[in-house]
């Protein structure tokens, strides 16, 4: 019995850590889809780019975690900003099909480039000794790394929420999510706002890709591999809803982890069944505002 509880707890921690990485990755996408209604299937590509950059800085240039994180996130944000001004501009007017085509093309280019630069091996951010340990909480031991991921994500989520709720920028962003046309009418520069949030979303994805790589290893197909889970988080959470993504990520991350452990033969069956049921029950998003 105690063993079951310990297993369940370990699974829960795993699930939450996975969920937090999914959440950080999905923030950018839910805003992109919610505000500008752009179907950006290349979003997880930015996570991959950030992951690889940070890894390369640590492994090949000997940088520490925090500097590597800062530079990789920053560089990815820059990349996102440049691409937004160029190729994404092309598809603002084409409608979803054009966006799907362009972003799939972009993802293909990212995958091929990753393979060219780094080969097809799996890579992960090397854990510094402090994070490689286990922390004991009474009877249970949790890996310090997972605790770090959860703590860091909660802090970032809190900071994002605070920005949304308490700053001017946040208020304007919320207005743009609720009603882009009205927001434009009252003088909110929606395109500029979107360019900024797009870049920030890419940066967050990069951080998730880098910090999460011990959990979700980096390899060239990473960009497409995690696209579907992230899309599921966004759909279940409700487009444009940060809180929704947070809760949806928690729900789906935990369900997936428990599902794969207890029904390994079924693989991804459990999580897809859950998403099917959840979206049929609440098509607008389980956690979306009514």
């Amino acid at each position: 019995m105690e063993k079951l509880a310990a297993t369940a707890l370990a699974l829960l921690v795993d699930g939450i850590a996975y969920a937090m990485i999914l959440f950080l990755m999905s923030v950018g996408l839910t805003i992109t889809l919610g505000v500008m209604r752009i179907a950006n299937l290349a979003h997880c590509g930015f996570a991959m780019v950030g992951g690889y950059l940070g890894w390369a800085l640590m492994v090949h240039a000997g940088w520490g975690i925090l500097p590597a994180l800062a530079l990789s996130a920053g560089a990815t944000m820059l990349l996102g900003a440049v691409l937004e001004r160029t190729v994404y501009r092309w598809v603002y007017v084409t409608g979803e099909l054009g966006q799907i085509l362009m972003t799939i093309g972009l993802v293909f280019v990212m995958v091929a480039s990753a393979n060219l630069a780094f080969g097809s091996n799996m890579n992960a951010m090397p854990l510094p000794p402090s994070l490689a340990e286990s922390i004991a909480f009474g009877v249970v031991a949790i890996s310090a790394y997972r605790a770090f991921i959860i703590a860091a994500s909660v802090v970032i989520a809190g900071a994002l929420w605070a920005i949304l709720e308490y700053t001017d920028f946040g208020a304007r962003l919320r207005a743009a999510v609720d009603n882009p046309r009205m927001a434009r009418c009252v003088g909110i520069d929606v395109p500029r706002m979107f360019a900024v949030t797009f870049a920030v979303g890419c940066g967050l994805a990069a951080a998730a890709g880098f910090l999460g790589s011990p959990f979700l290893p980096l390899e060239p197909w990473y960009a497409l591999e995690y696209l579907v889970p992230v899309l599921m988080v966004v759909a279940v959470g409700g487009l444009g809803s940060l809180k929704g993504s947070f809760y949806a990520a928690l729900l789906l991350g935990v369900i997936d982890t428990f599902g794969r452990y207890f029904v390994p033969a079924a693989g991804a069956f459990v999580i897809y069944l859950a998403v099917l049921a959840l979206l049929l029950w609440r098509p607008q998003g389980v956690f979306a505002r009514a």
Partner: protein
Amino acid sequence: MAATANGVRDAFQRHPWSWLDALPFLAVAVLYFAANTYLPLGTQVMIMAIFALALDLALGYGGVATLGHAAFFGIGAYAAGLLALYVTSEPISGLLVAAAAAGAAGLICGALILRTRGLTLVMLTLAVATLLQQLANSLKSVTGGADGLFGFKIAPVLGLYPFDLTGRTAYWYGAAAMAVVYALSKAVVNSPFGLTIRGIRENPVRMRMLGVPVTRRLVALYAISGAFAGVAGGLSAQVTKLVGLDSLAFTLSGNVLVMLILGGTGSLYGAFVGAFVFVVLSDRAAAVSPFNWLFAIGIVLILAVRYAPNGLVGLMRRGGG
């Protein structure tokens, strides 16, 4: 009154029978006589063209965005394979059974998910397809699991033309199937139902306020589209004599979607153009280097959106004036 009626008749945008319809079949004939080492590749193009036609009905005409259309391809493939293994190796019945099975699946699935729209609908199509793939993986005794179905024989077409290693029978068999699916697709598009579907794509609220039960019509369309996709899957099973889990895969759904958008949606012609370009490019480039193929296709897609926003067909239309 006759003059005004004629004026109105001409005001309907339809998919007329013209020399354009002969083009794909002309190409089929040309390839046969000019370069018959490429017959298997040609057959592959035709299979994907049928699949893309099916998707065009749902997506291009009905506006139903889907990332899971491989579900119907796969159901058709497994149905045809199982029929050949256990009941009869007669090929045409195989295609009919494939169409029926996939069509029934389209009806059930559509009734379940077509009340939703947008990203939710896309994710639901994806979830259904993935669940089916997981199911196929698990039901090893029926589907062969990861090994797939194989070892079934296909009888000669019409009792006269056996499938052999030259691939000639498969080629013409595929062309005949493509002709039939194309003709049926044209009939659907030109029918009153075809106009209803385009109306639903343009303005579903107004359609409701005309008294049309929108979801029911979409379910019917989805079933038809599924049935045609099933024909493509069944054809693939019969020609390659192999059915695997990849016939239900996300990559297949993604490929046919890319093919259709590249070729141009909502015109039926785009399915041919897109299938041809994508399959041939993939084949040629993948032979050289898989990752470089990916890079090249990626660049092609990005440029296509910039310079051919209505697909290659749109580009040709603009070029033609």
